[in-house]
Structure formats: C-alpha cells, structure tokens
C-alpha cells in the first residue's frame, strides 16, 4: 500500500497532468496539406482538344417543402433573417440548385486514369464561405485539395465554424463579428464535408473536396458545366444532400476530342436513387408505435 504522503503526491501529480493536458490541447491547426503536402500525381498539360460535360439536374414530382427555422435563440438572426428556412431542396420549375456534380473516376483517351494526375490547368485558387443572416453562403461549395477556404462572418453576432469531415481532421473555430476571416484547407478528397455552427444549430453547409477541378454546383436553373475535360470515358456523379445521408446519381459519359457531352440527372420520386458515398446506416427495426 502507498503511504499517505505518496497517495497525496500521486493525486496532485494526476491533477496537474490532467490540467496540463486540458490546457495544452488546442483544436488542430488548419491542415496545410498533410504528410503528402499538395496532391501527388502527374501534371496534366492542356492539349487544346479538351471538351465539356454539361447538363441539367432535375427533380421528378413535387419537391419536399423546406422547413421554417426558429431563430429566436439569437435576436440578431431573427432580425437579419426573419423568414429563414432550410435549404435542403432549392427547386424551381423542377430544376435543382446546389447539387454537386463531379467526375468520380475515368480513363483518358491515352489510357491514363484521371486519378493519376495531381495538377491540372485552371485549378481554382481560393474559395469563400460566408456566414450571413445566420446561414452559410454558399450552401454547397466545391474546392480542390489544399485550396485555401476563407471563412467570413458578416453577421453582428458570434458564430463558430465546425467542419465535421470523415477523411480530414475535425476543425472547430469561433469567430466573432468583425473578426478577420478564418483560413482553412482540406488536404484529402472527400464528398462532402458537412459544416455546421454549434452556436446556431440550424446552420449547415457542405464542402466537396476534389483532387481535380472537374466539378460544379448546379445553378438555380439546375444547370452545370464541367470545362476543360480531356477526351475519355468518365463516371460522373450528381450528389444532393436530400435523404438521410445524401443521395447520388451516377452516369457513364464519353467525351470526344473537343466534344460536348451531355449528362442530365434527376432526383425525386421516380428517379433512381443510389446510396451516397457517405455510409448508409442500417435501418432501425426496433419497435415503433406504428409497427404495433
């Protein structure tokens, strides 16, 4: 058995250790590229025979209504966005905005894989995510790996920005009104990284991280366009946040030299819905009132 003094010292040391651990633990710094730094792979040189993939993303049937958000927990939000609603379904005339369309994989005409390349012409330089009216603008954002993301706060209230990725480090940072823009990078490709504000729990955004620049977010008319695509055969995915964990549609597309390929997608009642790249959780089959 330890003596009384030894136990006292042990307790003191354990307490100090816990205190030190707690105070020394800080949220992870913005990932500057991780162990690999910039995306690895070959550099693609433009051959001036690149083509385009474009199309429209539609919704079959009547889209679910977006839900009213109760912003009364923060009067700033209520005054700035008195009629705030969820942004899950932004559908006008049967066309869906905020769907993320991207090339998942494929083979170029010369036989190389799209994933072999780490650098492409016209890689986007930076992106901005703004907190405005207690919601995120844009609601869905596409970036390439390690692209600087500038996070701004245009609201006269405090927000916190919380990235909850699966492949990248979790990142949470408070941001007061008037504070300088926060900078963050995501080092690994991921479709899609949910972003939330723990202070205003209705605030949600999604950031898609791609290794290449062949992605787009659909406009209000559901249209999108992927430009500068090398000739080849590709699997194109349209992802939408609707459903329990997001849903996606897949299509094989061939791009001819200097060609313009079309790829239209549809979501909704009669559309084929495939599991998203997020793991679909098992259905809960426990007793529910309607089962009895």
């Amino acid at each position, binding site marked *: 058995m330890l003596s009384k003094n030894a136990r006292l010292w042990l307790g003191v040391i354990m307490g100090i250790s816990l205190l030190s651990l707690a105070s020394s633990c800080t949220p992870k710094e913005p990932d500057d590229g991780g162990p690999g730094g910039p995306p690895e792979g070959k550099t693609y040189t433009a051959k001036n025979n690149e083509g385009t993939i474009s199309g429209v993303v539609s919704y079959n049937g009547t889209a679910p209504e977006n839900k009213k958000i109760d912003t009364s927990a923060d009067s700033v939000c209520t005054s700035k966005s008195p009629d705030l609603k969820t942004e899950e379904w932004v559908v006008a005339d049967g066309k869906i905005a905020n769907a993320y369309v991207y090339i998942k994989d494929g083979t170029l005409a010369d036989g190389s894989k799209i994933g072999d390349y780490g650098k492409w012409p016209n890689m986007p330089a930076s992106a901005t995510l703004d907190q405005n009216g207690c919601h995120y603008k844009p609601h869905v954002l596409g970036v390439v790996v390690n692209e600087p993301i500038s996070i701004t706060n245009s609201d006269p209230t405090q927000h916190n920005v*919380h990235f909850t990725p699966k492949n990248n480090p979790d990142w949470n940072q*408070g941001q007061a009104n008037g504070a300088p823009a926060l900078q963050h990078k995501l080092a690994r490709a991921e479709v899609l990284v949910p972003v939330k504000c723990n202070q205003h729990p*209705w605030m949600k955004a999604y950031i898609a991280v791609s290794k290449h620049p062949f992605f787009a977010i659909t406009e209000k008319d559901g249209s999108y366009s992927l430009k500068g695509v090398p000739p080849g055969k590709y699997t194109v995915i349209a992802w939408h946040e609707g459903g329990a964990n997001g849903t996606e549609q897949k299509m094989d597309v061939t791009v001819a030299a200097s060609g313009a390929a079309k790829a239209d997608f549809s979501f909704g009642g009669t559309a084929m819905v495939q599991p998203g790249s997020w793991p679909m959780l098992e259905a809960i089959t426990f007793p529910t009132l309607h089962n009895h």
Partner: protein
Amino acid sequence: MSKGVHRFAVFVACATFFLIIAGANVTSHDAGLATSDWPLSNGQVFPKMVGNLFWEHGHRMVATAVGMLTIVLAFYLQFREPRTWVKRLGWAALGAVVAQGLLGGLTVKLNLPLIVSATHATLAQLFFLITVSLAVFTSKRWIESEPLEQMVEGPPVRALCVFSLAMILTQLVLGATLRHSATWDKDLPTPLLVAHICGAVVVTLVLSTTIAAVVLRFRPETYLTRPAAVAGFLLVVQLGLGLAAYMTRRTSPNDPQPLTPMVAVTVAHVACGALVFAATIVLTLRVFRIVRAKQAEYRLAHA
C-alpha cells in the same frame, strides 16, 4: 451529528442533479462546441449568452457553482463530522468534481471525442452517487438506525441491491455513450441502441426483483420500502421516457434544428435515469445499514 451538514449535503446533491440536467441540455442541443474555448467562453468570463452558448456557458456556470459548493461541503465535513470515513468521502467528492471539470474542458479542447465525452457523462453519475451517499450518511436516521431485529427469509437483498446498482450504472454508461455517439441530426448507431434497449430490459428485471424482495420482506419498514417504491415508480416513468426519447430522437435528423419535444424528452430521460440511480443508491445504503448480512450473524446476536 450536525443537522446543518446533512441539509447542506442534500442541497449539494440537489445541485448536482440540476447540473446533470444542464449537461443533458448541452448534449441534446448539440451545444458542446458552441465555443472552442475553455475555461473561458469565446475569451470571456461572461459572454453574451445567445444561441447554443446559453446552454454551454450555462452548464459551465452551474458546474462552477457545484464545484464551489463541493469545496464548502468537503471543508464543512472536516470541521463538523466526527466519522473519518465520511470526511474522506467529502474529499473524494471534491476530487471527483475537479476531475469532472477537467474532463469537460478536455472534451471541448479535443472537439468532443466519444471516449472523453462519455467518460464525462459517466463521471457525472458517479459524482452524483457520492453526493447522494453523503446526504444519506449524514442523516439523523442513518446514524440512529439499528439492524433489524426480525428474522427474514429469502434471497440475499444486499446482493440484489448491489447487482441492481451495477446494472443501472452500466445502463447509464451505455446511455451516455449512445447519446454522445451521434448528434441530433444523425441516426443513432444501431449496435449501441440495441445494447441500451437490452440494458433497459435487464435493469427492469433486476430492479423489479429487488424492489419486490424488499417490499415483500420488509413491508412495515418504511425506511426501506419508501426508496424501493420511489425507485419502482421512477423506473416505470423512465421506461416511458425511454420510448418517447427513442421516438423523438429517431425523427430528429429530419428536423431543421434540435426541437423542443426531442430536447425535453431526452433531457427528462437522462434526469429520470439519474433519479432511478439515486433512489437505488439510497435503498442499497439503507439495506446495508439495517439488514444483516447473514442469518448466522442474526442468530449470534440473539443467542
């Protein structure tokens, strides 16, 4: 024996219960990371309590108050309590509340890892156990009570009580892990949900048996039957709240934000779980106080 010490111990136990409710609100509102700071909130001692910061900073304020009360209780016991082991329990309460505060800070700093958050929620129940025990140990009835004179037959009530307590604590750990494994906008993980439901069945069987044994064998002894009846009543309420929590939590991922019905029911489920635990602690301690361990001891005492 000091009446003041007992009253203050009861007050600390009640404050701890309120702290558990405040903590449950943080989880149900998904407010744990409303500020990435600790121990300050957004760099301030008293930030503007808007949005979910109301719940997170409110929890910190209540926790600070309970910490202060525990310090006072620990010192109060040193001066007014003659029993050394009760004095030591006072220090244990202080150690537990300090560790609990540090775990709370640690989980915020590490962005709520499941293991730390679940440990934080579990230690909350263990701290509650200590404060409730102190309230029992300092009571007049505890000090003045004598072992029962009557001969009792049947299963070992002491063992049943300890088993019930262990099962309830296990169930509380499972519940804490389940709650912290998915925020309101995510589905609960099926394996943990199954484990928690199975735990509810086990607790119901074990605690019901214990309550039945106590009530049937010690019918006139209200010192035992009263906490047993309270535990039984709370168990029934808790099962209803569990079902309601499951129903509201199952649909919450479709909601735009944590809505009041889900928050109220899940917080009530946590609070009632703590009360079931507290009632069983009181029952177990009283059983150990007045029910003899072995028939042989009884015979020896009355030879």
